[in-house]
């Protein structure tokens, strides 16, 4: 299989879908330049620059989807979806229920997400928890080129709506755009295995709602998405050196959530550490806690999350986002809690 970058992988999926289905459209600010190879191949009708009007853009995508087209609407950064949340959550997400399942909007909202390059908290948010909190929205966050292609294809085939989030640290296109040539010197912690990898050609769809076990392990389960998965893999290697056999589960889609995979791993390892670049109260880490508790896995739970607004200064940003150091420390704490937990659960009975 050819080695492909994360950005190319998405383009591969998109161009394959556009070639196959005349009804796939791309619309967004600057897409004729940003997606210029698609623009060249498919022209001004199907790759459309919009004004800086995200509500109109998402509404247009929604209406077109309702009328049988398959638009991919690009909100540059997911942070900007906040100016157009109504179209997404009160309209696109509610169509299926309100129409009694008769009307669907096969709409993909594509946006860059995540931090770690010094843009600060108005441009570096994850927000997948907030989006996944809305019934009726699917939210996917690929961590590898293969999944980037596979999940984009799946999103394009889904009855929708699907939010497709690409982490800026994984996407050459965005890294280029946001960091320019300073990025080497700005010492970004780019996970290489996420930015380039093997992608089958033609790409194959990765089903929504299926987590991938990136590393097996018996003592501890790290559960994450996006760049977090790579942080977990590094931490798992470190922990393994200490004799802690650490599994890494890549959720791949925040909604639908692969509750089975989480439950299974929680039961088998007894310790779940969620590594979530989204806010502590963004919803994902809490949801995992709820899943493992509701299903009586008896697993201990801990989390490494973004605990506040992401500050600009690089060292503050580094502390705010999940990093290997924080994961390892949290893993130690989680495993160290064992005895205390046994005592307290004794008392509770």
């Amino acid at each position: 299989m050819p080695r492909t970058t994360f950005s190319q992988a998405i383009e591969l999926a998109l161009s394959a879908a556009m070639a196959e289905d005349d009804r796939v459209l791309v619309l967004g600010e600057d897409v004729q330049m940003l997606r210029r190879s698609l623009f060249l191949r498919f022209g001004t009708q199907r790759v459309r620059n919009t004004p800086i009007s995200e509500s109109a853009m998402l509404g247009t995508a929604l209406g077109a989807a309702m009328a049988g087209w398959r638009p991919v609407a690009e909100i540059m950064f997911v942070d900007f979806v906040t100016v157009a949340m109504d179209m997404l959550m009160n309209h696109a997400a509610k169509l299926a229920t309100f129409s009694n399942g008769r009307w669907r909007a096969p709409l993909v909202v594509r946006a860059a997400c995540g931090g770690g390059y010094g843009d600060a908290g108005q441009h570096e948010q994850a927000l997948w928890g907030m989006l996944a909190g809305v019934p009726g929205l699917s939210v996917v966050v690929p961590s590898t080129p293969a999944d980037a292609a596979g999940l984009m294809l799946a999103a394009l085939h889904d009855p929708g709506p699907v939010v497709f989030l690409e982490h800026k640290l994984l996407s050459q296109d965005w890294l280029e755009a946001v960091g320019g040539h300073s990025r080497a010197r700005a010492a970004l912690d780019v996970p290489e295995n996420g930015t380039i990898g093997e992608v089958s050609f033609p790409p194959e769809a990765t089903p929504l709602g299926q987590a991938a076990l990136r590393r097996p392990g018996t003592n501890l389960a790290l559960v994450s998405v996006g760049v977090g998965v790579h942080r977990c893999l590094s931490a798992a290697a470190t922990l393994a050196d200490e004799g802690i056999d650490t599994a890494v589960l890549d959720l791949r889609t925040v909604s639908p959530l692969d509750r089975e995979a989480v439950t299974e791993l929680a039961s088998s390892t007894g310790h779940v550490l969620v590594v979530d670049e989204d806010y502590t109260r963004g919803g994902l880490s809490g949801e995992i806690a709820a899943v493992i508790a509701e299903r009586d896995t008896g697993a201990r739970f801990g989390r490494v999350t973004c605990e506040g607004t992401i500050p600009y200064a690089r060292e503050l940003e580094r502390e705010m986002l999940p990093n290997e150091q924080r994961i390892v420390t949290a893993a130690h704490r989680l495993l160290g809690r064992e005895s205390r937990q046994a005592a307290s659960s004794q008392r509770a009975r």
Partner: protein
Amino acid sequence: MSAQPDLRSLYRQMCRMRYVEETVAGLWNDGLITGEMHLGTGEEATIAGVAAHLRPGDALSVDYRSTPPFVAHGVDLEAIFRELLGDAGGLDGGRAGHMHLLSPEHLAAASGIVGASAPVVCGFGLAAQLDGRGQVAVAFFGDGAVNEGMVMESLNLASVWRLPVVFVCKDNRWAVTTRSRSVTAGGLRHRARGFGLPVVTVDGRDVAAVWRAAGRAVDNARRGLGPTFLIARVERLEGHFLGDPLMQVARNTRVLTAEVAPLVAGVWSGPGAGLPVRLRSLMRLSQTIAAAMLGQVRPRKDPLMLTRGLLEASQAAALEQETRAEVAGALAAARGGKVLRSA
């Protein structure tokens, strides 16, 4: 497009809408329809005049005064009644209700969010433009909605892309209890012109006038000449929604006295601003109530009355009878047997 409106069929459509709304009001008063029930009574001429130009394949994106346009666009009355009654056999299985009526077959969608019909109609319009078969998409929204950012974004987008869209702004001069003029800088015409849109203003109570203006707008859209902004002056005959406190005050002197007395008393109560400021507030409130009352005593603005006057009395009566029967029949069918929900 014939050059003269078929007043009979327009009146027929208006009667259907009116009787449906009257029926809805009754059901709401009986507690069988729930929530904030916004009627479209007073908008019938506008809706009939526009909808008459729509063909199968054309799309409709409307606000929460949604039953009339759905009726005019040919959606089954029984399905609508059942929907509003929350019946499993309703248009949307009872899941949508009156603020979110959806009919994929008719490409018709409603929303309870002010202004939301505008972005969605752009999507319908884009689909029509890409399909290239001369379809059009029509949006209805109120005069208050033009201040919602997404509406203005949509006017721009439709204008830039020359979408086959007709934006129908139903100007009833009110947004709930606020006089729209007091919060809309520049006015509606000016506003829409700022987006490079052709603007047509029409008396939305005059069905023939609406029919002609809408015909040109729809025709232009079909021919690829882009969107039009149609301002139609309409009435709000039943207040903002059923049970509107403002209407109760405006209609019932007893309620008026009961409501206003404490307000007047309030002018002297508690610490706060000085008397002149308080009196100014009182004056503003009084003006609002007076405007609502005035709205009540102008029955000649009722579009049905106006249209009736243009027909032979016997003809009108026959249409009324026919449509009353149709609506009553649909209601009877809807209430006849509840469709049970399978668990």
